[in-house]
């Protein structure tokens, strides 16, 4: 399993290296459900499940991306609280490979990729911090319903996690992990619905952005 994941990562990296610089686009998006994931929803089931639809991002997320021909890179910064006592700032960096998908004058494309997520679980009452880092596989669909407005629907699947805590006498650990709630589901992907703006420099050779 580890070897297969390693080979997939190498393949994605190889595709990234051979991308030619012709069409360049910059994207700026936000996760529209991240604020709701941080809200004090009274229903406990909804409070537990809603973050699965916000990619486990709580509060506010700002994402900036760069798409060059078929390849893309992005970074996501999230600041917010998972509940009343825990802050969970996050930083994610990712790579995407966009398949061809032209349709008249609209642009849309499926993509696959990988990302690395870092977060700090800060318990503001006990002053404990748990730093974690997790690799994820991602897949998604980005489209442009109107000029420059983009909608990006993304699926993210964690494949492992490593953590370290500031609590005295604690020991760091790393696990192969596909779900934060394995008894609910042993494999649990997260979804995010992102909306934003795509800017295409006027120096691009092609007039129509090509994913």
């Amino acid at each position, binding site marked *: 399993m580890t070897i297969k994941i390693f080979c997939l990562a190498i393949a994605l990296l190889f595709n990234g290296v051979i991308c030619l610089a012709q069409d360049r686009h910059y994207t700026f998006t936000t996760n529209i459900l991240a604020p709701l994931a941080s809200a004090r929803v009274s229903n406990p089931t909804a409070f537990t499940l809603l973050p699965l639809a916000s990619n486990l991002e709580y509060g506010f997320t700002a994402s900036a991306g760069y798409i060059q021909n078929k390849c893309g890179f992005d970074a996501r910064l999230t600041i917010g609280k998972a*509940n009343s006592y*825990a802050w969970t700032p996050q930083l994610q960096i990712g790579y995407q490979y966009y398949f061809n998908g032209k349709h008249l004058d609209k642009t849309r494309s499926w993509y696959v990729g990988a990302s690395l997520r870092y977060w700090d679980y800060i318990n503001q009452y006990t002053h404990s911090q748990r730093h974690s880092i997790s690799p994820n596989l991602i897949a998604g669909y980005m489209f442009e319903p109107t000029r420059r407005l983009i909608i990006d629907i993304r699926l993210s699947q964690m494949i492992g996690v490593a953590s370290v805590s500031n609590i005295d006498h*604690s020991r760091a650990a790393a696990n192969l992990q596909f779900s934060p709630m394995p008894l609910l589901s042993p494999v649990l992907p997260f979804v995010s619905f992102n909306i934003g703006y795509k800017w295409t420099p006027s120096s691009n050779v092609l007039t129509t952005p090509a994913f």
Partner: protein
Amino acid sequence: MKKMTLFAALCCAALMGCSKDWVNYSPMDMNGATLGYDDANAPKRLRAAAVAIQPSATNKSETLDTIRALVERIKSEHNDIQVIVFGELILEWYYQADTPVAYQHHMAEIIPSATTDFIKTLAMTHQVHIAVGLTELDTPSNQLYNTQILLRPTGELIKYRKRNLNETDLDNNIQAGNTSQIVDIDGIKCAMFICSDMQSDAVTHELANQEIDVVLQSLTTTTDLHTQVSYVGNQLNKWIVFANRYGKEGDFDYTGFTHIINPVGTISERAVGKNVYVYRNMGIY
């Protein structure tokens, strides 16, 4: 401009929700690797067990016999045991849907009682602290409380009344307690704790400010999401002796999952089933 301001205010109100003191749990509370905790060289130790039994709906004597059998079994298997914790309202069903209030009144104990004397005898005979959850009837006020009692090997009885009530408590016409209860067990500071007390932001904050070593938590729950990382463990960052119940009670099916959780939020010991227990020799720094 006014419309935008009003819209923003409504959004903020919706996002903030009610100001009710209630903590719900999120996937991020359990998201992380299974951290280790080195307590082998800790200067102090507390040997504790958490038990999940199936109580009888109507026959309290049968339930007390089950408690006695588990205490004797734990003592025979772990002669150094210092404290045994049983679940919340463990002398009866947690909720009886047909006549919930009448049922709780019928099963309630006026403390002290023959029932508490039975448990006191167990504690004195086996020289172990025993914590048990029960419904208490306060005679002056005729009000019901969700209470956890601790019987010491000396025979002393200490009680704690649940402060943060959930909907089932309210349906049972339970009244809230208003004080914490910290007990010293052989030099270890322990907090008495019942179920949804952990879902109070104020109680959580209070517990963090007190120099508690161990939380003795009697609870009733079906929320079992992770076998290795505990949301309440990451919330309290203390040793937690987490005792549940087993059995089908109306629409609720309790698996009896019972834990001992270490201060980094890792489930150190876990058992699932009927009349099971977990034991841990906890190192306290």
